[in-house]
């Protein structure tokens, strides 16, 4: 159930953030150049599909308990997610041209960072709550 929860949370978070980032990028482009981005009917599904595909390596690589290989798995996770996102972006026509690819890569870095920052913030908040609760019951040193 714990892994399923990670899978679901990651899918929703990634899909949501990709949608936001694409939306903001296209809005900025429209406001600056007047260029209009026509959304194909299936493209929202492509965002969800990428969310699902990126959740699977997240569950597989970031769930195991082995601390020795943790950093290796984090780096591997980043590379695999990057390959999935950039390949999907190309296949699903999220961008056009080389410059579009660069912008998409930057967007990927932003979304990836936001997801990690989001998760870190949640864990930090929980850590603070536990420490505050421990203050109340801790024996004297």
């Amino acid at each position, binding site marked *: 159930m714990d892994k399923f929860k990670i899978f679901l949370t990651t899918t929703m978070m990634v899909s949501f953030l990709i949608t936001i980032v694409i939306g903001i990028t296209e809005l900025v482009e429209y406001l600056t150049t007047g260029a209009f981005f026509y959304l194909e009917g299936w493209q929202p599904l492509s965002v969800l599909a990428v969310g699902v595909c990126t959740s699977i390596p997240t569950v597989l690589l970031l769930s195991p308990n*082995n*601390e020795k290989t943790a950093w290796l798995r*984090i780096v591997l996770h980043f590379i695999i997610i990057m390959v999935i996102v950039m390949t999907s972006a190309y296949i699903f026509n999220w961008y056009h041209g080389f410059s579009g690819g660069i912008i998409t890569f930057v967007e990927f870095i932003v979304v990836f960072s936001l997801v990690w920052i989001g998760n870190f913030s949640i864990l*930090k908040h929980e*850590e603070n*709550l*536990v420490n505050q*609760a421990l203050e109340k*019951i801790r*024996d004297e040193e």
Partner: protein
Amino acid sequence: MRVTVNTIPEKAEESAVISIHSMTAGVRNAISLLQDGEPTITGIKDGETYPVSVYGIYYAESVDDKSFIYTKNECYEVKYRLYELEGILDGRFIRISKSMICNIRKIRSVKNAVNSRMTATLLNGETIVISRGYVKDLKKRMGL
């Protein structure tokens, strides 16, 4: 539970009356404490047996089919299995991994580690790891 404490003259006999709806482990522990004083567990060190105060135990660990309890500065072997210790020790002890139970009142602070695990620094400066699967139990015990 409402608790009333009355100070009585030295000559009068001390007594306690506990009014409960049903017997719980907490009530049993309270009764045991009142009747027998501070609970202890027998620990073995260098061939000698020692009564170890339960309240002084920092954590208990199972290694190679043997169980050990750790106090601030000492380590004792005990004849119980870890799951048996869980039944003997009171609610201040919680399982934090497959081979360890910890006295949460001896935890100075916790810190997130990689893979959603937590490291706990104890009052004596030792650091132990709370496995990811047991972090949830810790939070539940903390009322979070």
